[in-house]
């Protein structure tokens, strides 16, 4: 079995040309899951019957001339914090093992309306924060590039499923890097859109003011197509922005000539965990963009530690507010890592939280000021490649290899995109961040890096 499937755009062309059916694509995806998921644990639940029914409907609609858009007939899966009517939504937790929502999340509804085929629900770190954990009803998913290594989290099953070729895209959520982190460590494109771009309604919250929904995908183009279906104003989500949704694919191949790209080098250059290979990968991406006509220069932002502190205080406070009652009554039903993180939310005082929110306003203004003179930022997604399961950094420490939380704090769109493989055979990635609601430029730069680095020709790991 070829580990790679055709791109979403190519599958769409074949569906519309009548050279393939959604039913055939779905059966192929189910066969891939059957062949690989036993060792990788991407899925919590495979909804095979639902998928086959969705596929038949998609074929029938297309034959009748009803084309529902770019995801019509395409198999996909949802991180298991996205509500699905009639299908368990567990948050990968013993506490919600039997929870069956009555309604779809807005994003799940968008995919259904768009004719996509739901393959099932994907593993996550418990409640999008606690992992990798072995003391839960389901095991953690494994990195297809080397199964002794973690995927990163919390959208762990999404990354595993795509990097193993089970599907081309899946949903994730990103509160401190949970889309961009697994994407970086599994060689995928993962975009956290601007805060407010995608509705969060029906997605179990970790931290209301930091949570973002978005896609992980095999390629930048796949991510753009998926974001097109996910995005849109939702009057019932108080964070949802009533702004036009652009065509995310329109500028993908325009190149980067003339763009000004800033590198906040102090974020990562002297960070404790950073590896020479990560530094080299960022330099390589910068050189590629320069050679393609972009102007790349170092820029100054506030100290990374302030972004991290503000983000962590906000996240832990809001998460504890959500989980307080269950933590009081069922603490041992959470994974040890999860409860350890939630406990920390209980030690933060009101003034600490307000200080974090005041810092947040200053930090957002500072990023906006830098982005007034450049089109985007290029920085690290992670300071390392994916660690081994037996060498995961202390889950309760403030030190993290991820460099993603600044743009959760500020809400700017940001994406991980792979640039190559490290000596250990694991993917190396960089992060692009852009102006509010300017995902097209972020995707355009990501697509350029994907092409110029040759990543688009790197095959997925064989199963």
């Amino acid at each position, binding site marked *: 079995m070829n580990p790679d499937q055709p791109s979403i755009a190519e599958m769409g062309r074949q569906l519309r040309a009548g050279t393939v059916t959604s039913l055939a694509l779905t059966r192929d995806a189910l066969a891939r899951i059957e062949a690989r998921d036993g060792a990788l644990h991407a899925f919590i639940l495979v909804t095979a019957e639902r998928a086959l029914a969705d596929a038949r409907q998609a074929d029938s609609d297309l034959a009748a001339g009803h084309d529902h858009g770019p995801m019509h007939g395409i198999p996909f899966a949802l991180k298991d914090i996205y509500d699905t009517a009639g299908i368990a939504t567990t948050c990968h937790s013993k506490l919600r093992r039997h929870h069956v929502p009555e309604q779809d999340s807005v994003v799940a509804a968008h995919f259904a309306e768009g004719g996509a085929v739901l393959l099932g629900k994907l593993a996550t770190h418990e409640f999008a924060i606690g992992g990798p954990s072995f003391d839960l009803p389901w095991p953690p998913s494994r990195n297809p590039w080397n199964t002794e290594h973690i995927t990163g989290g919390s959208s762990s099953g999404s990354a595993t499923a795509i990097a193993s070729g089970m599907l081309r895209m899946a949903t994730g959520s990103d509160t401190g890097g949970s889309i961009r982190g697994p994407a970086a460590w599994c060689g995928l494109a993962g975009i956290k859109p601007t805060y407010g771009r995608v509705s969060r309604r029906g997605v179990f919250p970790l931290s209301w*003011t930091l949570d973002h929904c978005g896609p992980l995908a095999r390629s930048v183009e796949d991510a753009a197509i998926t974001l097109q279906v996910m995005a849109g104003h939702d009057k019932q989500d108080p964070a949802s922005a009533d702004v036009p949704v652009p065509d995310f694919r329109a500028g993908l191949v325009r190149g980067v000539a003339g763009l000004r790209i800033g590198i906040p080098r102090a974020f990562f250059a002297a960070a404790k965990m950073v590896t020479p290979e990560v530094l080299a990968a960022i330099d390589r991406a910068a050189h590629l963009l320069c050679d393609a006509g972009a102007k790349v220069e170092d820029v100054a932002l506030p100290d990374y*530690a*302030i972004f*991290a*502190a*503000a983000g*962590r*205080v906000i996240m*832990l406070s809001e998460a*504890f507010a959500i989980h*307080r009652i269950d*933590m*009081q009554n069922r*603490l*041992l039903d959470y994974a*040890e890592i999860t*409860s*350890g993180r939630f*406990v*920390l939310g*209980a*030690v*933060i005082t009101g003034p*600490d939280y*307000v*200080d*974090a*929110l*005041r*810092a*947040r*306003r*200053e930090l*957002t203004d500072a990023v906006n000021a830098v982005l007034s003179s450049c089109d985007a930022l290029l920085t690290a997604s992670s300071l390392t490649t994916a660690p081994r399961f037996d060498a995961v950094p202390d889950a*309760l*420490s*403030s030190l993290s290899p991820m460099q993603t939380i600044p743009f959760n704090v500020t809400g700017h769109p940001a994406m991980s995109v792979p640039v190559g493989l490290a000596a250990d055979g694991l993917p190396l990635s960089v992060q692009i961040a852009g102006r509010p609601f300017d995902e097209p430029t972020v995707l355009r730069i990501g697509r350029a890096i994907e092409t110029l680095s040759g990543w688009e020709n790197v095959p997925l790991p064989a199963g």
Partner: protein
Amino acid sequence: MFAPPSDTALESEFDCLMARAGLTIPPARRAGYLAAFADLRSQIALLHTTRSAAVEPSNVFRLVSPESTR
């Protein structure tokens, strides 16, 4: 300037905060959580800078008139 408390003071503070939050920490996990508390406490101190009262929190909001939403 942030001055780290003594180990004893840190433990007392942690126990007090857990009691206030209504949390019962299993003894086997207490040392790990206590270390994480000390680490977080240092991180929080980074936010305790002197800011002008004009620096408002990010959740200050504005209301819109009913007419503007029609």
